[in-house]
């Protein structure tokens, strides 16, 4: 940085410290030798060992059965992964039904597991399946990526042990695979000391950013929502705006002044975005510490100027699951000669059908065969997913029409207007995506109408 740099430049340099060449060479010289023995193959082996512990721990978290079921279930789950790895490896020799639709085959295996669980007699077999089944939504998308790697012919020479590190990722994650699968991770893996240092510095920065967002979330909880669980609420000595949370307002339309309700609606969007960012930053930060310089899960979605841009930036790895397993397969197979219909069909396959499917198979009510319970929790989401798919389709078609043209006019005011439009769209449809069964779709719609004085 030059001596005469302004405050803006200095701030930018501070925020972008991970790209500072001096720091990078210091890190490479001082820190890299400490972990010099930790080259890429060793890092993966370490992650694979941690994966086994992670599998048991995650299974234990999701199971309320006896400990023996977890200890027996974990190797069975790894055995299932071995079976899918073998299928992926030998995909070209598999029967046509499997070869041509490997993802359908995988989800048929999931369905068989569920049917076995639902029909298993009470006792040990059922307890064992009760430990394994809640893990299936966790591994299914990761195994999907494994099958895709097999389809691309990139599995030759690998063993199952080479895949454990992302099937049971020690860096964390939800049912959504943060870091995707083998192809993506091996493509971004650091192979030199400098690349490793660069990835680690980017990881440190992202973890710090995650902690900053955690602080902001805690501050919001105390200063905006007066959340009694936030440690800052007491620190602020009762000073708070006392804005009601959206989930508390939706069941009671008209219970607060309209301005407060709209304020709460927008705040909820900020709240869920920051919470997603703070968790995702730490997960991806840890992944980067291990030399995988992966994309962030959340990247400035609140500054997006179009619905589709927000969707790409809000929850990147979930969007990738929907894109890879629903959007692209539909796009390349359906309506090739009708460009707009092609995009609409692929978007609905992903944002509507895929989104519903993803959330349905992870519902505890669904896993325990309560279809009424599943409907109660999921039916509002049908409308959310439908509106989301409509919004993304329209936004994609608009972006496509504008491609190659100059940026939209209007300057800063125009930009603010576009951002406000995106906020409004996602804040409004979130009413039908709030978790829980109450209120039902009609209650949520009543709340939505009350926002406009109806």
């Amino acid at each position, binding site marked *: 940085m030059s001596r005469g740099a302004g405050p803006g430049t200095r701030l930018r340099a501070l925020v972008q410290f991970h790209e500072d060449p001096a720091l990078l060479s210091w890190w490479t010289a001082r820190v890299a030798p400490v972990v010099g023995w930790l080259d890429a193959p060793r890092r993966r082996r370490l992650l694979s060992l941690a994966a086994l512990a992670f599998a048991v721990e995650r299974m234990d978290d999701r199971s309320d059965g006896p400990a023996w079921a977890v200890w027996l279930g974990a190797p069975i789950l790894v055995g299932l992964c071995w079976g899918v790895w073998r299928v992926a490896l030998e995909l070209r020799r598999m029967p046509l039904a499997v070869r041509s639709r490997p993802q359908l085959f995988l989800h048929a295996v999931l369905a068989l597991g569920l049917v076995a669980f639902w029909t298993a007699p009470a006792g040990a077999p059922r307890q064992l399946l009760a430990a394994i089944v809640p893990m299936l939504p966790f591994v299914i998308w990761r195994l999907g990526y494994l099958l*895709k790697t097999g389809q691309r012919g990139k599995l030759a020479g690998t063993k199952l042990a080479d895949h454990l590190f992302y099937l049971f990722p020690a860096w964390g994650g939800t049912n959504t695979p943060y870091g995707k699968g083998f192809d*993506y991770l091996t493509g971004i893996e650091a192979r030199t000391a400098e690349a490793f240092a660069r990835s680690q510095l980017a990881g440190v920065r992202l973890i710090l950013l995650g902690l900053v967002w955690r602080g902001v979330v805690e501050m919001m909880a105390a200063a905006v929502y007066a959340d009694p669980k936030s440690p800052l609420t007491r620190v602020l000595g009762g000073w708070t705006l006392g804005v009601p949370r959206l989930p508390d307002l939706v069941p009671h339309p008209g219970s607060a002044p309209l301005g407060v309700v709209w304020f709460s609606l927008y705040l909820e969007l900020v709240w869920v975005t920051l919470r997603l960012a703070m968790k995702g930053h730490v997960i991806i930060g840890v992944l980067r510490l291990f030399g995988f310089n992966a994309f962030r899960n959340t990247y400035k979605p609140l500054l997006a100027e179009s619905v589709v841009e927000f969707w*790409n930036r809000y929850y990147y790895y979930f969007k990738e699951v929907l894109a890879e397993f629903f959007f692209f*397969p539909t*796009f*390349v197979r359906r309506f090739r000669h009708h460009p707009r219909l092609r995009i609409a069909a692929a978007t609905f396959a992903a944002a509507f059908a895929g989104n519903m499917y993803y959330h349905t198979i992870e519902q505890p009510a669904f896993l325990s065969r309560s279809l009424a319970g599943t409907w109660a929790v999921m039916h509002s989401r049908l409308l959310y997913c439908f509106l989301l798919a409509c919004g993304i389709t329209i936004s994609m078609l608009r972006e496509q029409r504008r*491609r190659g*043209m*100059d*940026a939209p006019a209007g300057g800063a005011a125009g930009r603010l207007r576009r951002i406000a439009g995106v906020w409004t769209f996602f804040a409004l449809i979130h009413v039908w995506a709030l978790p829980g069964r109450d209120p039902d779709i009609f209650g949520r719609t009543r709340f939505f109408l009350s926002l406009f004085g109806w």
Partner: protein
Amino acid sequence: MTRAERATALRAFLRTIQKPGLPVEGLGEDEGLVTSGLIDSLAILEIVTWLEERFGIDFATLGLDPGELRSIGSILDLIGRETS
């Protein structure tokens, strides 16, 4: 059609879908099309359509691997492999 001719055709196509103000000529074969800012991620779909129409590549059979469309070089490799 040689690789150089395909590269010329590809760059000419990219010019029609790129963001304004970024010269496609200066982009290296291995530079990411999206990460360099030349195109947005949705433009990948336009590249798919162009490859289907121009080179008859059938992604329904082949499967779509976004990694194969990440740079000019990887797209040329894909065309070379699928049209040979």
